């Protein structure tokens, strides 16, 4: 008598059908379970491009599976080409996932402490296998995500999809735009380079302008001796103290890796749920004004998710992945790393990344409470409620001339303020310092540091802008540097009269060279002016690659 009876059904099947058919049936069964409803034959039908049989087994994963239940079973034929959606929403989601994955790789080699963060960056860039690749991908993905999310919003505005009934979808989209922007801001703080320190300093000083409204100011004065305590507190919480410090770095790190991604993924869920509930909106010209037929797709105008939509989505993902990898390898896109953070020196020409230049430009205009808080507050406030205040029934371009014109004006303003954020607007220093800053910029290595160490031969070299002959030097690298030096002095010749540029190369220590850049000129009142800056180059500095 058996104590227990072991029953293995496959053995019965083999006995009944023979080994091979039984195993095949078992594999088919496993595949059907894994795909939540598609057998091997069904899958091959998909891959061969067969028309869907009736009843359509390709709908089963939508009904029974977790991942596919979020996706519609079919789309309207009119929304599946590139226009009107350009797949920007899908690509935004993809880059969110892409950033999560590359970010986790970087987290392995990163410690959020001012003592080692910068060292970690150097380690990732030089020693960790594929570390440079991962960091560049992460940075490229971040910039691509900002661009794609912004374009997604622009497209949604242009085709009028923020209108009823999709106002709340738009609202959550603006939340996601903010999450994207703050994610990227918090990301470039982490390397603890000069950009990190001064970007947080400026950002925290902006929120420090938060006004303390009546009667809180009286309470603040009474209890904390600080009538503008709201601004002070926000500033201290953001920086971790009066100046950005270790606590501050840890706070921004946690925001970057935990809080913001969490908020982001939750809102992506809400956003996409609303997209599915209301259906993918048809192009504006395809419907009568005031009608919303997205949910009523005639049988003969359906494109099924499986196989057409999923194939295209995978194609787009493959394409942007290829573009990203190409950009950071052959495309020579590299995430910038400025010199180590120095709380005693604000670098000349320090700029935010391109997608924040518009804020930097606005801040040059004046009052920080207005340009740093109220103006961005109004911009995002209007974006948040746009769907609820702009209630014109028509989505057609011809009926929305005012709205589209406002959008174009806003884009022009964005371009202008972006230009104003660059160093060329209102922050140029004196001509002598600008010339030296071309050769040895304070925010990135620049031409002098990128010239190979061996090219610097000790000696004194002089360039004069009015010399006819090209500068002479023993090496090609030095010659091209001197040519650049001369060219910059020529450009500045209206401000630097009788200028001469001197470059002195000295063997300072073993494997260390000192390079002095000195400019002499004559002032308008006849006195002599001079400016000098020293640079030290080590043989192993490796700025070149």
């Amino acid at each position, binding site marked *: 008598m058996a104590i227990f009876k072991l029953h293995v059904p496959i053995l019965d099947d083999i006995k009944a059908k023979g080994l091979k058919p039984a195993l095949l049936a078992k594999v088919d069964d496993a595949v059907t379970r894994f795909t939540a409803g598609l057998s091997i034959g069904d899958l091959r039908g998909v891959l061969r491009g067969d028309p869907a049989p009736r009843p359509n087994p390709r709908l089963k994963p939508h009904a029974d599976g977790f991942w596919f239940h979020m996706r519609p079973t079919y789309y309207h034929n009119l929304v599946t080409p590139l226009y009107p959606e350009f797949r920007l929403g899908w690509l935004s989601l993809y880059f969110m996932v892409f950033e999560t994955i590359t970010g986790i790789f970087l987290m392995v080699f990163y410690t959020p402490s001012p003592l080692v963060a910068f060292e970690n960056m150097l380690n990732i860039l030089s020693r960790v296998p594929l570390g440079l690749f991962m960091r560049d991908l992460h940075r490229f993905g971040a910039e691509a995500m900002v661009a794609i999310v912004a374009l997604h919003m622009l497209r949604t505005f242009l085709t009028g999809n923020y209108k009823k009934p999709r106002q709340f979808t738009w609202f959550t989209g603006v939340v996601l735009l903010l999450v994207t922007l703050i994610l990227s801001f918090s990301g470039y703080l982490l390397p603890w380079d000069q950009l990190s320190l001064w970007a947080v300093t400026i950002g925290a000083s902006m929120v420090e302008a938060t006004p303390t409204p009546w009667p809180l100011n009286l309470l603040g004065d009474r209890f904390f001796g600080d009538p503008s305590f709201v601004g002070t507190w926000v500033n201290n919480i953001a920086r971790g103290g009066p100046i950005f410090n270790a606590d501050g770095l840890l706070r921004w790190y946690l925001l970057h890796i935990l809080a913001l991604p969490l908020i982001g993924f939750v809102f992506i869920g809400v956003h996409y749920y609303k997209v599915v509930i209301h259906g993918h909106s048809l192009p504006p010209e395809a419907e009568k004004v005031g009608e919303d037929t997205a949910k009523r797709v005639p049988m003969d105008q359906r494109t099924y998710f499986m196989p057409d939509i999923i194939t295209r989505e995978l194609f787009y993902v493959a394409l942007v992945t290829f573009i990203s990898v190409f950009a950071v390898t052959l495309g020579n896109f590299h995430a910038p790393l400025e010199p180590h953070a120095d709380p005693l020196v604000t670098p000349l020409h320090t700029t935010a990344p391109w997608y924040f230049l518009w804020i930097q430009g606005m801040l040059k205009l004046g009052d920080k409470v207005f340009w740093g808080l109220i103006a961005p507050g109004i911009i995002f406030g209007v974006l948040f409620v746009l769907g609820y205040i702009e209630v014109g029934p028509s989505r057609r371009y011809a009926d929305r001339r005012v709205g589209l014109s406002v959008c174009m004006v806003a884009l022009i303003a964005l371009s202008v303020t972006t230009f104003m954020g660059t160093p060329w607007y209102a922050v140029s220093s*004196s001509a002598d310092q600008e010339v030296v800053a071309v050769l040895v910029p304070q925010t990135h290595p620049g031409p002098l540091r990128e010239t190979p160490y061996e090219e610097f031969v000790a000696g004194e070299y002089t360039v004069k802008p009015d010399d006819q002959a090209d500068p002479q030097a023993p090496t090609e690298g030095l010659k091209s540097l001197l040519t650049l030096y001369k060219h910059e002095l020529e450009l500045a010749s209206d401000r630097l009269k009788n200028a001469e540029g001197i470059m002195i190369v000295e063997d300072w220590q073993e494997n260390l060279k000192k390079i002095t850049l000195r400019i002499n000129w004559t002032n308008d009142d006849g006195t002599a002016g001079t400016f000098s800056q020293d640079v030290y180059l080590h043989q192993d500095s490796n700025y070149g690659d």
Partner: protein
Amino acid sequence: MSSAAPQAPTTTPMTRREFLYYVWGASMALFMAEFSGALVWFALPRFKEGEFGGKLPVDVSAIPGVDTGPKDFPEGRFWLVNLGPKSVSDERQPADYPPQQGVLAIYKVCVHLGCLYKWVPTNDRFECPCHGSKFLANGVRVDGPARRNLDAFVMRALDANGNELAKTKAGDPAKDDSAGAPFVLPAGTVQIEVDTGKRIQGAVNTKPGGGK
């Protein structure tokens, strides 16, 4: 039920259960408010005594010469300037801020958004690399988005016995031109003491080119 006449909306009385739910809800809202307050309290940094904010002695020999340009004191986060006849006769000086001669300790941090401006000798002024605010050697704004003059620290001139000979006048420079103004070191001064804990906010300065 009479279906013809439109019915007035019926009001249903609040039950005890409904009332208790509201009380519960209100108490949870109160708890969340308290929790938010606690969160802010938790997140506020704690300060240690003796950090930046103390008094910094500067020997008289370390003070820059008259009209020689500002000198950087990174440990105290200030610039020391010695304003002489040349600075006072500067044509760029906005009329609203009468220039005065003497020594002044200016806080290094830009009053716009907290970057460190620097002295540019060629242009004979302070320039901020972030958003382009420009200040004269005496801290008066002449250009850019800053909305007030640079902040100054209270400074005392001491003689060899440590007696106070002169002191920066405290007060609001917007109302009193002599508040936070430089002073010429009295004869017998051997040391000045810069109090980095006492900062005098610069006067409001918002006009293009500088001015109230």
